[in-house]
Each structure stands twice: as C-alpha cells, then as structure tokens.
C-alpha cells in the first residue's frame, strides 16, 4: 500500500530526506543572522551578537551553561512527569461520569487560564525559593493539554465497540484497559507533544521568579543574570539551550508515540 514508497529506501536515506529541508532553513537563518550582525548591528553586540560571539560565549561558559541546562532539564522533567501522571489519571477519573466532569473540569480550565507568570510569585511564597516551586510551575503549565486531550480520547470510543464489550460482560476496568485507554493513545500523545515544550517554558518562568541575581541554578536564573550583566551573547546561548531542551522533549515524546502507534494509527503508519 502507501508504505511501499518509504520501504523501498533505506532508513538513512529516508532520514536525510526528512532532515535536509530543516537543515537548509537553519543554515539560511544563521546566514541571515550573521549578515544582520555584521551590517546593521555592527559594533552593537549588546543588541545582536554575531553567531561567532555566541559560539565563543558558549565555549567560555560551557560549564555554567551545561550545569544550568541540566538543572532546568531535571525540573522540567519532574514537572512534566507529574503532569503526565496526574493529567492522565485525572482525566480517567473525570471521564467516568458527566457529573464529575461538570464539577471539576472548569477548575482544570482555570488552571490553564490563570496567568502562570502572575501566580508564580505566590507559589514561591508557599513552597519557598527552591526547585520544588519551579517543578510546580512547570507542572501547572503542562497539565491542561494532557487532561483535555486524554479526556477527548477517552470519550471517543466507538459506540459499537462499547456495546460489544458490554455484551460480553466486560466491567468498567476491563473496558478501560482493553478498549478506552488504547483507543485514547493518539489523543494522549497529541497532548503530551503540546506539553513537552510547555514544561520547559514553565520551568524557565519558575526560575525567573526564584532566581534573580543568583549565579547558581537553571537556565531561567542564568538568563536573568546574563541580562543584568548586558552579556547578550551568553543570553543568546541560554535561549538557544532552553529552546533545544524543549525541542528534545518533543522529539523523545514523539518517538515514543510513534513506537506505540506505528502498527495501527494513521498518524504513525509507515514510520
């Protein structure tokens, strides 16, 4: 069928074909950046440092940058993991009854609509100037897309299949594990992919609040610190590191999703 096209070429060739357009765009963007920094912003490195300056700042501060990235990675990963566990479990509970959904779902929405930047100081006040607060901000940021998509998935079970399971005396637990949860996986992974980047953003926002002026800590702390010193080249390096971190989360989650869905779901067939 449609799979024969990709099956005829080797994985390496397929990867190169997929990656080539992305690499070309990246090279063009860096070229344009370099051009801009060498012309309009010539001598104004504090506004737009050149790619070479950013590379140099990265090398110079490699240890701090690596430590900060690792620290943010840890916090974002914890917040994300917490959001996955609580989000999926919460959605599973909400999907059990309309009454539960009506009474609790609005609060899940509120958690999404409240400006995280505004309540982050409150969280720091409650949980202290520590990593726990950062994890909580990251968790709040990543929770809603997971809850929402999981609920949508759990509610999308085909009527015929539900009837089939009822006819053969499957109880709610069996229906959940053998029918509703596997059927919801494509939706769940759609939520997880959205939240992957959000968890890193949440961690950085949390670090902004707890970490101003602190030389230790994650990327958010370092960004505030670099800004204070007008060290724009390092600021760029940190922003790039934070962006790549979120991208990495996304790639890992997408790969796991493809692995789980590759045999049956349209989105992953032939991958």
């Amino acid at each position: 069928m449609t799979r024969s096209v990709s099956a005829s070429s080797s994985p390496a060739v397929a990867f190169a074909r997929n990656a080539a357009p992305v690499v070309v765009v990246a090279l063009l963007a860096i070229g344009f950046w370099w051009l801009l920094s060498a012309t309009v912003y010539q001598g104004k490195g504090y506004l737009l440092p050149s790619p070479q300056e950013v590379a140099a700042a990265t090398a110079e501060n490699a240890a701090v940058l690596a430590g900060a990235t690792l620290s943010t990675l840890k916090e974002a990963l914890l917040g994300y993991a917490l959001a996955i566990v609580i989000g999926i479990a919460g959605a599973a509970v909400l999907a059990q009854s309309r009454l539960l959904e009506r009474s609790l779902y609005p609060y899940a929405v509120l958690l999404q609509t409240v400006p995280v930047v505004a309540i982050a100081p409150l969280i720091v006040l409650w949980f202290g100037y520590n990593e726990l607060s950062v994890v909580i901000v990251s968790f709040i940021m990543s929770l809603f897309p997971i809850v929402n998509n999981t609920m949508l998935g759990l509610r999308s079970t085909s009527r015929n299949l539900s009837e089939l399971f009822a006819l053969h005396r499957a109880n709610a637990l069996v229906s959940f594990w053998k029918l509703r949860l596997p059927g919801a996986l494509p939706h769940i992974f759609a939520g997880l992919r959205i939240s992957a980047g959000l968890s890193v953003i949440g961690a950085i926002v949390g670090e902004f609040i707890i970490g101003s002026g602190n030389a230790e800590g994650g990327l958010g702390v370092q960004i505030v610190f670099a800004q204070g010193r007008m060290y724009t080249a390092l600021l760029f390096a940190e922003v790039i590191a934070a962006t790549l971190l979120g991208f990495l989360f996304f790639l890992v989650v997408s790969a796991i999703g493809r692995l789980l869905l590759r045999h049956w779901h349209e989105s992953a067939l032939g991958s």
Partner: protein
Amino acid sequence: MSAEERGGRGAAVTLRGVSKRFDSGLQALGAVDLALRPGEFVSIVGPSGCGKSTLLRVMAGLVAPSTGRCERPAGIETAFVFQEAALLPWRTVERNAQLLMELEGHEPESYRPRAAEALKLVGLAGFEKSYPHQLSGGMRMRLSLARALALRPGLLLLDEPLAAVDELTRDVLQEELSSLWRQAGFTGVLVTHNVHEAVYLSNRVVVMSPRPGRILDVIDVPFAFPRAPELRASADFAALAGQVTAVLRARHHAEAVA
C-alpha cells in the same frame, strides 16, 4: 464436524409483545411477537428507521424492551456482528479473533486454538499477525465473523454486516456466511435492507413496517440448503423476492396515500 461438536444446536428465542419507546419519546418498536426456531436463519427487512436494529439489540440484551420480554435459553453465547467490522485496530488479526473469549474469561489455552480454527474457517489463515488496517473491507468483515464464531454462539445477530462491502464481495460473503451457518448450527438473525440477501440466506424473511416497527408479514423461503449461487438468477427466487418487495411496497404506498 457436526453442529453439536461446534457448540451445540442453535438457541430458541421468543419475543413476546416487545415494544420500545426511547427516553426521547421516540416509539421505535410497536408490539412484536416472533418465535425463532433453534438453528434457523431469519432475516428482518424493513425501511430505514423501522426499529429493526433496535429489535436486534433487544435480542442481544443490549436494549431493555419498554414492554414485553425476550426469552432466551440460559447459558447460551450470543454474538453480535456490526455493519462496521468494529475491530480493535491496535490488535493483530489473531488477537482480535480472541477478544470475545478473553472478555468472557476463557483461558488462553482454550481460546487460542479456537480463534485459530475460526480464522481458518473464514479463510484468514496466514493473516494472524497482520493488523486490521492491512486488510480489505471484505477481510475485515470475515475477521469480525471469525471473532463471533470463535465464541461458538447459540445465537448470532448480524446488523447489516454486508452493507458496506462491494457487490461482488457481498455475493461471496453471503455464500460463505450461509455455509458457516450450516456448519456451526447457530440460530441466525440478520437485519438487512437487501431483499435478495434476505431471501438467499434465510429460512424465513420477516417484513417490518415503518416506525413504530411492527411485523407485517413472515415469508417462508422454501429453497433447500445448500443453496447454489445460481439460485439468485432463477425465476422462483425472483418471484419470492418480488413477494417480499410487494409487502414492503404495499405498506409504503398506503403510508404515502394516507
């Protein structure tokens, strides 16, 4: 293998004064009386929305009748085949064929060989490790049948299972279904729009009125089994199909005039 070895004789099912009014106020079924003899194949034909699918769901126990009752012998397995194959797309063909026995709490040692046997019966041997999306529409319906047959049902309820497949496949599947029914010995109830399908497969054809559905007529089909595919081209067959259509039409005409 005799019918007894494959799961015993078909079940006798009796509907007494079954009607159904849904919570929405929709009267789907009038009072329906119908007695199914063990091992016979009965088709229900009628216009869209006449409640024939509801009747099938009452027989399955999926819908509780508003009045009347459906009597089924205790301890018989009932299997249901839907218009869409209703497969689990994340399960392989063999795991789909095992599903109903698994849900009914059978042990893997007993359901694995039974599922394999059912797959062989419907001509899906060799596709055990495939996934549903790799199968054609006809093969998916065969798998859906195998899944039901593996349970060795006393009563098999079929809700327009062949409506979505192409005409050539439909003819072939009708012939296969008829031969499976004769081998397995279940009582079969088929809901269909297709008068020729109903006549070709059945001992009796039940014709229903528009909503609220009532039985207008029950027409005996005298042709002996096994029925050759060529039977469909015979004059007797055409006459009987015409008789069923006439009952459907007469009512339709009466409604239109009134």
